[in-house]
């Protein structure tokens, strides 16, 4: 038994002919193609649904083969559904929240990684621990805090929440990255007369660009796709971001699935653009922790 298993790898290695490799590739495709199809099926389903008419869906059900083609869903979503306005609100929340949280996180990470701040380990762990708390248990306290600050039902509140909740994780990731930058670089700069601010702006930040890009892409998707905080601190319809507006399209009595599907497609476009633009950084950014 043992002899047989020991000899097999050797014989396999010699038998690695092109034909064998080709067959293996064929098996790979045969397995992966259906899996891929399964993976994209929901998206295709939504896309098809978006172009069907309401009467068609009501008559034949959502899963039926489409028997109509119309842009009515998109028209309603952008018209009475006000997806355009909601998209603009989402951008107004996402852009400042991402920029501000990355800026603050990079300051914090810079200080924690380059200077002997007392208790920096505890600070860092506390920041990370805060991230482990499920946001659901903080919904009511946070909405009360916003209320007492007088910013309940404003976009400022939403930006502040996203900055606050993102900060811990971003600082942790940036801290890890900044620590991997050799200290000789900053020491050399210091010998040349650069102050802390100059070192931060001219040495550290340019070197952190890949991790900042990855975090930026991550933060954008998280904040853009957030629903729970939006519906917790906002109550004016005209201030609802795209996710909450999407939820509003779904009525208690009727669900115009074609409108909901069309609006979902519209809502997915910005995050898709950000993702594709930063795709390279995204993947390398996710690997950041593993190589260290």
């Amino acid at each position: 038994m043992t002899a047989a298993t020991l000899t097999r790898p050797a014989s396999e290695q010699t038998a690695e002919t092109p034909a064998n490799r080709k067959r293996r590739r064929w098996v790979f495709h045969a397995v992966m193609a259906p899996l891929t199809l399964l993976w994209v099926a929901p998206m295709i389903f939504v896309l098809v649904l978006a172009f069907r008419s309401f009467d068609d869906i009501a008559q034949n059900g959502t899963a039926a083969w489409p028997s109509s083609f119309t842009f009515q869903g998109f028209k309603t979503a952008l018209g009475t559904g006000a997806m355009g306005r909601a998209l603009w609100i989402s951008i107004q929340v996402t852009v400042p929240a991402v920029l501000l949280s990355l800026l603050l996180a990079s300051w914090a990470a810079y200080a924690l990684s380059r200077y002997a701040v007392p208790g920096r380990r505890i600070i860092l762990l506390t920041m990370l621990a805060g991230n482990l708390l499920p946001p659901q248990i903080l919904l009511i306290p946070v909405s009360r805090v916003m209320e007492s600050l007088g910013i309940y039902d404003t976009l400022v509140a939403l930006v502040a929440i996203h900055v606050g909740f993102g900060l811990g994780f971003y600082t942790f990731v940036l801290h890890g990255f900044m620590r991997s930058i050799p200290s000789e670089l900053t020491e050399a700069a210091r010998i040349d007369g650069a102050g802390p601010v100059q070192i931060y702006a001219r040495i550290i930040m340019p070197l952190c660009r890949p991790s900042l890009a990855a975090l930026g892409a991550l933060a954008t998707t998280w904040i853009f796709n957030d629903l729970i905080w939006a519906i917790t601190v906002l109550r004016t319809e005209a201030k609802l971001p795209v996710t909450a507006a999407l939820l509003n399209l779904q009525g208690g009595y009727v669900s115009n699935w074609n409108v909901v599907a069309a609006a979902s497609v519209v809502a997915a476009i910005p995050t898709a653009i950000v993702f594709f633009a930063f795709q390279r950084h995204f993947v390398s950014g996710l690997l950041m922790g593993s190589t260290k």
Partner: protein
Amino acid sequence: MTTAPLSRRGFLAGLGGLGVAGILGACATGSDDTSGTASSTLTLQSSLSDADPKAALTKVVEGYTKNKVTLNTIAIETFRAQLPTYLNSGNPPDVLTWYAGSVARDYASKGFLLDVSDLWTGSGPCAGFSPALKELSTADGKQIFVPTNYYWWGVFYRKSAFQEWGVQVPTTWDEFIQVCKTIKSKGVAPISMGTGSTPWVASGWFDYLDLRINGAEFHRDLLAGKHPFDGPEVKAVMDHYRQLVEYIDPKGRSYSWQDAVTPLNSKKAGMYLIGAFITSAVPADGVDDLDFFRVPIIDPSVPVAEEAPTDGYFASAKSKNVSGAKDLLAYLAAPQSQQQFIQLSKSSNLPTSQQVDTSTFSPLVQKGIKLLNDSKAITQFFNRDSSDELQTTADTALTKFLDRPGDVNKILTEWQANAKKVFGQ
């Protein structure tokens, strides 16, 4: 050297402060154009997120010119969850849509609702409403609710389908079971019921069977915690429910109530006990073919009762503009507003004001009015006659029951235990 760390910190702090102030400031100026004028503008928080009712309410509010009104429509499930927060906040919306009955009384007992008794007296807009509606809107001797429309429940079916299958509208329980048998023999599911994401639909049959067997008074007391769910009366209800289980489309277990309308439309299911709002989920050409009948009588000695859930508005006790809020309520309750809303929302809802001319309403709605006028008692619906918490216990129990009707006794004991917890709170 000693000044370096100080100046660095000072510089960083200054920079940070500037940055935050600048960015937050930019946001604030970008978004506070509506909140700045909130004190003089009335806010109407609406849960009517369905397309047609939303458009209708927007139109009705546009017709109100005395005060500026901001209409906020929030998806119903979000609204339900956020309602306590809305009412409890420092600057609450002035007027809100919601349901009459126990749910409104519950909020009134916490002191959240504005006393609108003056709208119900003298020449107030609600003075002409029926005594039953007044009683429904009263908590601790004060009126806290303004009902504007209500709807009926019935067993909906397609006229052409019944003709095809050669069945007649049943009026008694035995006839009803016979109809179910006939429809089933044609290979069609007799009863459609979407209890997947909307498990409360299962309470419809429970409510009606209880109303038909034990009567409205017992039903109200049961939901108020005065009778046990594992008593002989509820067991009798469940015995009848059990006879239905084999006729209920099993696929409905994974449908929402809306999805379960589709089999009815395509004649793959025969009947559906649901509210009149079903008409909004039926394609335009199917509405004329749609009809309904009263849930069959089981015990003729029990006075006929029907469910007629009532919708309307209440105002927040903390409203900054009480006279404005009352004025808006009065406008919304006026006959012409009611009529405009019902017609534009294309719903099959009925007006609460007796001055609304209903002769132009569709034959289906006329039939609904007649159904309710012929009833001896009116109930709301399980959750509206009790609370959302008790509804959850019903959802759990009835979902289990539909899966395993044989375990009915065990399920009822569990239900009673859960209900006790709700009432014990």
